[in-house]
């Protein structure tokens, strides 16, 4: 996955978890939960989906790395380098 694809992967996961949220026009550097309605349970779902779809483990101490789209790409980029993007699961 390229860096852009990682962002796409995250957005696709968020879309299944929070279908009512508008994801177009999100500021990548701003905290996700400050822009859309995401609570701590939703972040848990992101972690579970990452594991299920891409076989990536995000340990609890790293949950904070998922705060914004930019930090997601920074953190997940290296882990997803050799993994194919799957959308619309």
């Amino acid at each position, binding site marked *: 996955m390229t860096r852009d694809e990682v962002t796409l992967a995250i957005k696709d996961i968020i879309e299944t978890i929070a279908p009512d949220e508008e994801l177009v026009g999100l500021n990548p550097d701003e905290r996700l939960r400050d822009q859309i309605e995401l609570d701590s*349970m939703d972040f848990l779902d992101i972690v*579970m989906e990452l594991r*299920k779809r891409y*076989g990536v*483990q995000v340990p609890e101490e790293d949950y904070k790395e998922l705060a914004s789209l930019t930090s997601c790409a920074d953190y997940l980029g290296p882990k997803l380098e050799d993994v194919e993007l799957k959308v619309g699961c």
Partner: protein
Amino acid sequence: MTSDNINPDGKSVSRPWGSRHGRIPQKKDFLEGVKAEYDVVVIGSGLAGMTAANILGRNGQRVLLLEQHFKIGGLATWFKRPGGHIFDVSLHGFPVGMKKTCRKYWSQEIADKIVPLDKVTFDNPQFSFDTTFTREDFTEKLVTQFDLDREMVEGFFAHLRKMDFFDDSNLTTGELFEEFFPGRNDVHRLLMEPISYANGSNLDEPAITYGIVFSNFMSKGVYTFVGGTDVLISAMRAELLKNGVDIRTRVQVEKIQVEYGSDGKPHVAGVVANAGAATHTIRSSAVLSNANLKTTILKLVDEEHFRPEFVAEAKAVRLNNSSCQVYMGIRAGESIPFLTDLLFTSTRTKFQSHSLSDLHGESRTFSFYYPKGRPEMKEERYTIVASTNARYADWADMTDEEYESNKRQLCEETLSHLETYLPEVRSKVDYIEASTPRSFEFYTQHQGGSSFGTKFEGLAPSMNLHLELGGLFHAGSVGIIMSGWLGAANYGVIQANKVDSYLFQLQQTQNATS
């Protein structure tokens, strides 16, 4: 779900089983055809156990869900009685968050049946009014009816919302109330009573438990599930089966088996389960227990597998209180006028936190169930369920006669209390029955009939269990904040994620070595 019932004429009808008579012996093997091994065994089918099982099944894990009762659902349950009555046990109401939780972890169809109650009412010698049960309405009431300063009230709610785990947990809820509303017993009553009924807590708990629960619960109304608990649980059952979960009822887990790895550390190896005609040993990589925390640590696992410090910590955890309920069925063809959906009522002049659990106390909630709650039923039916908090110790040592007469007294007091709101109701009730802490203990096997798990200190051993014993997880009412339908279901999700992560890790290591 209760075992003994008392007819309105005061005659008692005993069944050949129940909390005083024990269980019906089983001749069948309820684990017939079970597999020898699963990824995870879930012990108990309460909302936490079921929700965890559903997520794990959905994630492709091989899940076995074991329940000792003949129905799944745990305390989220219902029962039928002669006269065509269906009584819901714990469907008084829950926070709006349940809608999102059901959509994400169950199905859109289940979530769509969650709707707000039309009316919630308080009535006691200190205040009487209807409320939408929202933060806005509580603010309004505190300002206009209790003459409090708006800024003070808003400051209090803002303070509650900011409270989190890192707060100084020495402050109690009572102290917090005194700080903001000194000497205002009426305000304390309004703020505390609904929470006490919802999770068994009192003014002596750490203030943080209050802050978290209040912000979730007393902020956006009270919600219910249209169709009744039976419809909800059967929809959940269908979903579990769709996700490949092997569900077995009437199966009592007696032991969690432990083995030691090459590193000398213990991990779970499976369970020993009594399935009626046969006892089975089933292997699994992980076990998620929805049994009470203390039962899980102190009974299901042999003590030698834990550090003595951990056993001591578990022993020191206090259980939460239990409940009594009185179920009243309105005769077929009769009706009652719409009064309210949920009534918090008391004849006690002043609020005293602990008196909410008194044997034959003056405070109770009434849930009124009208035909709108079960639109698919052929006949229009009405039931009323009264609930109180209760202490197990008050009921535990009664003789059979004392037990019967106390239950009869409870039914009578409740009916008289109800008559002050519905004067003609006595003649319309054709079925009345009481449940006690002993009933709750019998049907869930929770120590002390605990309705809401443990006090706050139970949270740490519950969350850290897998660090003590590899592959063993707990999910179920615990620590006050993880209780009620929403708390239990969400805690099931939190723990399912940990189980899934554990299994994933294990499966990866296995793949690497094979």
